[in-house]
């Protein structure tokens, strides 16, 4: 990891956010409502950032991200309910188990990814999400089926905010480092021109699978944290709608913009709490946001703006060169 000015600023921001939130918690200045939002925000930040890797950088639409989350949540929670280890090692192992289990599913989805892209791939991921849900429902003796898996030890609630926060920061840093690395450039090149990337010798299939596996791993980790915060898991909570909500975060964050995804995840998790009771309008708002942002991103107004800006930038670079 290269240490540059940007990294330092990011670290300062992270530490600052932590200090403020922790201060508010220990000072008892947050209402209970706000306190109960802290962990979900961390969970959705991890979800959004990992999905951002697939949607924003690989340029493929995954509609089954909640499915990965559920695999991680269930496998991590099953470990937590059966283990007798002390809290910290138990949580760490659970995170690893949850992440790995989700990554295995990411790999399974990765296989059709070899042959598919675009629309087809999106539908396959949607299908996988549904298949995962059906299977969890079907394996009643293990997962509790429709009744849900309850009595999960509450190891990742706001009382363990420090741990969850560090975990979130680590996930974000890992993702942003992947993006900035050579691998990240390869992934982005697949998005921008698949055939050219292939011609340039980039192993397209391997990178696609890798991206899916990494994203699934982090979604699984987020799932474990989710499970340890709520204490009960039900298959219905990981449906298509949840996947779409995470997608909205990524799109609102500017697709391929990690910081944007984080900000969007924070806002979209906190907003429904503030606008309590207006959930029907929330989904309506989400759909409008999706359409409007897509139209705006591809509108002539924006293109003209971008062109002007690029010209300016080019001009500046030229001057610097002189």
């Amino acid at each position, binding site marked *: 990891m290269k240490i540059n000015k940007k990294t330092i600023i990011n670290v300062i921001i992270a530490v600052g956010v932590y200090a403020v939130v922790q201060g508010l918690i220990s000072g008892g200045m947050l209402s209970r409502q706000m306190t109960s939002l802290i962990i979900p925000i961390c969970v959705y930040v991890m979800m959004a950032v990992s999905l951002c890797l697939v949607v924003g950088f690989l340029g493929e639409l995954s509609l089954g991200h909640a499915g990965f989350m559920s695999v991680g949540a269930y496998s991590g929670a099953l470990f937590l309910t059966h283990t007798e280890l002390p809290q910290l090692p138990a949580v760490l192992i659970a995170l690893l188990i949850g992440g790995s289990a989700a990554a295995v599913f990411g790999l399974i989805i990765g296989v059709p990814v070899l042959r598919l892209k*675009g*629309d*087809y791939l999106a539908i396959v991921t949607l*299908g996988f999400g549904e298949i995962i849900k059906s299977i969890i*429902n*079907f394996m009643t003796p293990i997962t509790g089926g429709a009744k849900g898996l309850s009595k999960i030890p509450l190891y990742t609630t706001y009382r363990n905010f420090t741990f969850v926060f560090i975990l979130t920061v680590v996930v974000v840093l890992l993702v942003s480092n992947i993006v900035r690395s050579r691998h990240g450039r390869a992934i982005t090149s697949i998005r921008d021109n698949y055939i050219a990337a292939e011609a340039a010798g980039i192993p397209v299939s391997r990178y696609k699978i890798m991206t899916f596996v990494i994203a699934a791993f982090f979604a699984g980790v987020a799932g474990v944290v989710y499970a340890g915060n709520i204490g009960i898991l039900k298959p219905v909570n990981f449906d298509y709608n949840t996947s779409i909500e995470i997608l909205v975060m990524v799109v609102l964050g500017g697709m391929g913009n990690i910081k944007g995804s984080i900000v969007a995840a924070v806002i979209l998790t906190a907003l429904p709490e503030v606008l309590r009771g207006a959930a029907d309008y929330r989904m*309506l708002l989400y759909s409008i946001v999706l359409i409007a942002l897509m139209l705006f991103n591809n509108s002539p107004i924006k293109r003209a703006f971008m062109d002007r800006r690029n010209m300016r930038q080019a001009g500046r670079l030229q001057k610097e060169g002189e």
Partner: protein
Amino acid sequence: MDLVNSILEQLINGLRTGSIYALIALGYTMVYGIAKMINFAHGDIIMVGAYALYVFVGLLGLHPVIAVLLTIVVCSVLGITIEKVAYKPLRNATPLAVLITAIGVSYLLQNLSLLIFKATPIPFGSIIRVPSVKVGSLNISGITIVTLVVTTVSMIALTLFINKSKAGRAMRAVSEDKGAAELMGVNVNQTISLTFAIGSALAAVAGILFISQYETLLPTMGALPGIKAFVAAVLGGIGSIPGAMLGGIILGIIESLSKAYISTQLADAIVFGILVIVLLVKPSGLLGKLKIEKV
């Protein structure tokens, strides 16, 4: 009842759902074949069609025939509007942007109807009254027969229209190459609008038949049949009109048989599993043509 008879009955059940899937898949495949995009909102246009019929017949008390025609008009206009507002500006954008917009439209329609009609299901009796037919000990409901007939007629009419008429030729030209079609004097925008109008009209018919079969209105009623119909379209070979019909009926039968003899809970998983297998083994589907990608 012996096993053969029970299998036959389950096959008829499959036909019942399959013919609805087929009708929805026709619209999907047509829009995909020509506009080259998955119209995710197709399933929700079915829902709009069903609610429109309810408003015309149930609330305004119009004659069923007029109501059906009005419903088809409403859905066609809606289809054209959606295309003009949401999809047309994105014609040169990445498939990802188009797909996300389509999901947005689908959500928008669902949530609008949720706000207008609420989540409580609305009962609405069938406007189609056809007596059921008895073949030996088998009982085939009237609505199943109507759906099958309508689907078959639509399929034949659509095939003839695309292959024989001038507008159909224009559609095929747009499907092959938009730029070249434009140079040849085809009005691309008009052609795509027409495609969406026909696709949405088919969705309206599907909505009318769907509501006649199940008699309950829900804002989310179109979502699952829509996705399954897409699977059917892929199974039959997306872009192929006879393929959509074949795929729909096969999917309905597979679903019914797996519910009856394997597990109801796993039926959806089996349906999506088939999608994955088809895409891996024969991505062009049963009757589709394979396209080679160009830069």
